[in-house]
Each structure stands twice: as structure tokens, then as C-alpha cells.
């Protein structure tokens, strides 16, 4: 073996050894394999039906119009409920029907018609009460937690626990925002939040339904849950203020920096439950990352950030919208590794990661309609065919919730 061959062998071995195993791969592969098999069978059935239809139609054509058989219908492929991944944290099935929300790593598309929103959740399916429109979804050990509008009145909002057995109203009036701890046993939301109204923070033990109330001096918007402490809030006169972390046990609020947005303190931009890392932006367009558990602020990276959209499931990548034009940058460890230019005249509404390299983007088009784009790899985006322009879309980033 020559010197360079020896170096190659050594370096390749070291590189390969540096890779960790993929958690939950076994379940994901089997679940996706089953789905693919179902889709193939359905497609094969559809093809056979079409061929039979053609043969019949051709025969009928020979006999005259009046005898023509009705065209054969192709059955639409549909997912099998038992195939839904139970703990698919990081990936969605490729090409899955977007009308469904999956038990983890998921999104829901509402039809826009009031009264028939269906949430599918392994192992069951739940139907929301008539007229409800989903604003936000979170997973808990007890079921799906839903923040919804009950009517067109923005102040007629509810927080409810939704299971296949029914819908349990936890709060009503004007609750806003949802955060659930990693165990899925405690949830927090704020109430009374408005532009000029202080908030009351409600923390509920979902098992016992015991609720703790904490009065706040400013409006607060729930952003996530810092493990070992409690919910993290953006806390200011306007949404997206400086982040503060609430210690649930002591009721103490800890701000990052001096907590005053008027003094140029960085404002909340994103939170990764996986890495417990906070993203903030400052007035100069710099991205400030911070460890939410230790409250240590890392050095800022000046990337010309317009808006931060979401961390990837593992927290390794962060999607941000840059200021020069509507484009999504994928930032890993402070370095820009990819970008998705959005179609002209569109703005980014939401982003959710199907995997570390696949994203679903919801964009707002010039005509005001929402569209869903799926970006495969980097920079290759296409409109999700089955998404209906103009309908409300709610994306929910999935995560593992330990079972009871």
C-alpha cells in the first residue's frame, strides 16, 4: 500500500468512526417501508383499474356510445393508521399526504371550511368541535394540546387537550401560546396578553390539572420550555421582545441581558428544545445564541438576519430569513451552509423540518395566498402538489413525548 493509500484508509476510518448511530432508525425505516408498500400497492391497483377502464372503454367505443361503461375510478392512496410513526422525531414520510398531522414531526392543513378540522394522531384520530381553527399544536403525554380559535373573534380562543376520546377544554377567553416540558406532563400558556395588557402565566400539571398562576408586568408570549427551569417567554411591549425564563418552582423570572428591548437588548428569535439553545437578534442584525439552561450568551454572528424561523429537529441548523431578499438561510454552528431563495413576491411564514435536509416552507404569495413548498436537499424547492393555495396552514415541529 502506498503512502497516500495508507493515509486514505486511516482518514476514512477516523471519519467513519466519528459518526454516531441514528436513534430510532429501526422504527422509522419499518414505518416508512410499510407506507411505501401501501402506496405501491395502491398505485398498482390504480394502474390496473385504469388499464381495465381503457380496455372496457375501448370495447364500448367499438359498440357505440350508449353502451359505454362508466370510467373506472382510481382509488386514492391513503395512509394506514397503524403505519403512522409512533416516535418519528426527525423525519416525515416522503410525499405523505399533507392534510394530516402526524403524531410527531408534523403539520396540519385546514380545509378552510369551518367545522371539519380533523387531527390524526397515532394511535387514533380526533375531530375538533365545529368551527374551531387550529392556531398551534403541542404534543403532551396526555394527548395533543391545541390552541384554537372558536370563532372569527380573535379573543375567543381556547386551550384544549384533544384525544381520540374527545376534547377537554383547559382554558378559554384569551389564552395564547403553548409550551410543554420534555416529559409532556406540564404545559404553560399566557392569558390576558395583548398589546397593552400584562399577562397572567398559567402552568398546568396535565395529570392532576392543578394550575399555578403567575402575574407578569408585561405582555408575554410563550416560546418553549427550558428543562430544569420552566417556560421561556418573549417578554416586552411588542411580540418578540427580550427572552426571559421563568423558574416554575420559585416563580422567579430571569431575563437575558438587562431584559430591556429599548436599550438594544437582543430580542427573542427562536428556541431549540433539543439543544436548549436560544436564538436572539440584535438591532445590528446579528444573531446571538445562548445556552438557555446556564443563561450563558455566546458570541454574536452578524449575518444580516431579517427573521429567524426555526431550529432543525436536532437543533443543529437554524433557518433564518435574510434582509436583502426573501430567502431562507440554513445556519449550522454559526456558518451558512445553504439557502433557499423564495419565489419573487413571497414572504416566509413558517418553516418545519422533515429531516435535517428536507424542509417544508409555508410562504405567503403576492396575492395573499399561502403555499407550501418542500425543499429536498439544498436549494431544490417545489410546491407541494396536494397543498391547496389559500388555506390556513399550521405547522408543528414534532418531538418525542414519552408514553404514559
Amino acid at each position, binding site marked *: 500500500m*502506498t503512502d*497516500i*493509500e495508507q*493515509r*486514505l*484508509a486511516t*482518514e*476514512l*476510518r477516523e*471519519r*467513519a*468512526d466519528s*459518526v*454516531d*448511530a*441514528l436513534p430510532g*432508525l*429501526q422504527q*422509522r*425505516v*419499518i414505518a*416508512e*417501508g410499510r407506507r*411505501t*408498500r401501501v402506496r*405501491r400497492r395502491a398505485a398498482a391497483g390504480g394502474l390496473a383499474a385504469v388499464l381495465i377502464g381503457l380496455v372496457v372503454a375501448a370495447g364500448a367505443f367499438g359498440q357505440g356510445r350508449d353502451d359505454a361503461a362508466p370510467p373506472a375510478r382510481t382509488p386514492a392512496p391513503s395512509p394506514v393508521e397503524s403505519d403512522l410513526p409512533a416516535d418519528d422525531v426527525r*423525519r416525515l414520510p416522503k410525499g405523505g399526504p399533507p392534510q394530516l398531522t402526524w403524531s410527531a414531526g408534523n403539520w396540519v392543513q385546514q380545509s378552510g371550511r369551518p367545522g371539519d378540522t380533523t387531527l390524526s394522531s397515532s394511535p387514533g384520530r380526533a375531530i375538533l368541535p365545529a368551527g374551531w381553527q387550529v392556531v398551534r399544536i403541542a404534543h403532551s403525554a396526555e394527548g395533543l394540546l391545541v390552541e384554537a380559535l372558536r370563532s372569527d373573534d380573535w379573543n375567543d380562543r381556547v386551550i384544549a387537550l384533544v384525544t381520540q376520546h374527545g376534547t377537554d377544554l383547559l382554558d378559554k377567553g384569551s389564552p395564547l401560546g403553548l409550551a410543554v416540558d420534555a416529559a409532556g406532563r406540564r404545559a404553560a400558556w399566557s392569558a390576558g396578553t395583548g398589546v397593552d395588557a400584562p399577562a397572567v402565566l398559567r402552568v398546568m400539571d396535565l395529570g392532576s390539572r392543578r394550575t399555578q398562576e403567575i402575574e407578569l408586568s408585561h405582555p408575554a408570549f410563550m416560546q418553549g420550555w427550558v428543562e430544569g427551569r420552566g417556560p421561556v417567554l418573549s417578554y416586552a411591549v411588542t411580540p418578540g421582545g427580550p427572552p426571559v425564563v421563568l423558574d416554575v418552582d420559585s416563580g422567579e423570572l430571569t431575563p437575558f441581558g438587562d431584559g430591556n428591548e429599548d436599550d438594544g437588548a437582543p430580542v427573542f428569535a427562536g428556541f431549540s428544545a433539543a439543544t436548549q439553545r436560544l436564538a436572539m437578534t440584535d438591532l445590528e442584525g446579528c444573531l446571538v445564541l445562548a445556552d438557555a439552561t446556564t443563561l450563558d450568551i455566546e*458570541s*454574536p*454572528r*452578524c*449575518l*444580516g438576519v431579517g427573521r429567524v424561523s426555526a431550529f432543525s429537529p436536532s437543533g443543529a441548523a437554524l433557518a433564518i430569513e*435574510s434582509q436583502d431578499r426573501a430567502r431562507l*438561510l440554513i445556519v449550522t454552528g*454559526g*456558518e*451558512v*451552509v*445553504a*439557502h433557499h*431563495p423564495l419565489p419573487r413576491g413571497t414572504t416566509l411564514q413558517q418553516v418545519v423540518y422533515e*429531516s*435535517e*435536509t*428536507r424542509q417544508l416552507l409555508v410562504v405567503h404569495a403576492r396575492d395573499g395566498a399561502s403555499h407550501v413548498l418542500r425543499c*429536498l*436537499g*439544498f*436549494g*431544490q424547492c417545489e410546491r407541494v402538489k396536494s397543498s391547496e393555495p389559500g388555506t390556513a396552514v399550521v405547522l408543528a415541529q414534532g418531538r418525542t413525548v414519552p408514553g404514559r
Partner: protein
Amino acid sequence: VGAVAAREELFGEFVSARSRSLLGLAYLLTGNRHAGEDLVQTALVKTYLALGRLRSPDAIESYVRRTMVTTYTSWRRRRWYGETPVETVPDVTDDGTFDATDDRLSLWPHLRLLPPRQRAVVVLRFYEDLSEAQTADLLGCSAGTVKSHAHRALHTLRAVLEPDNTREPAEDGA
């Protein structure tokens, strides 16, 4: 139903035992951890669909590895790999000086420059320790083609790492 369950159990055991090794191979082929994960999952799903024809763990392993290599080369044909370059790099405060120094001494960044089949040959020959014949079988080409791919890949890497040495004959001649 029993046979399907048994096959799935066997497959599940295989995945949990071999996923790290498969991910290592996928990482070396794609040069990217995340693309490697996608490659492993895609190959495993294809293997799952073929489980009825695979009777032993050895057969499964061989099928997965072959699928990974063929899927990787087909992805590259479809420009799936057009992922690393960034059109406009915004102002980044960290210049990563130390990483750049490390990279100059490393073969890894230069492997990304190799065409897909050359890269696959390098990985299969020098990481997987496959013979030329085994590599040829996996890639569906002749042993001579494998030899030629390996020669060109090593020449490219040598030229990048030791530019003076590789230019020597031409300079002497001049």
C-alpha cells in the same frame, strides 16, 4: 402474517446492529452527515421492500450496501449533490482559521472533488477493504474500470496534496 413479522424482526435486529456502520459508509460516500442519513434511510427502505427475497443477515447487508452505492451514484447523476456551495456568503465573524489549516493537511475536503464513481471506488477499496473484483461487482462494472477509477482518484488527491511532486516529470522535461 407470522413470516412477515419474523422478517421484520430480523430486519429490525439488523438495522439496530449495523446502522452505525452503514452510516459511516454513507457519510464517506456523501461527504455530509445529513445526506448520509438520508442515504442510509433510503437504502434501508428499499431493502425492507425486498425482504421477501433476502433470507439471511448476510444477504441483507450485501443488499443494503449495494443499494447505498447505486442510490448514491444515481443521486449524484440527478444533481442531488448540488448542496454545499452557497451563492452569497453573508458577513460571518468567525473565519475558522484553525479549521482551514487542518483541512489543508487532510484528504477529506479533496475527496468531495472526486466524481461520484471515483469517490465510491476510493471508499469501497480503502475503507471497506474490498478487492477490485468485489468493488466491480458492487458498482456493476469491470475490474479494469475500478482500477482506472482508483488510479485517477489517487492521482487527483496526490496532485492536490503534493503539487510539486506531481508536476516534477513535466518540469524536468521542460
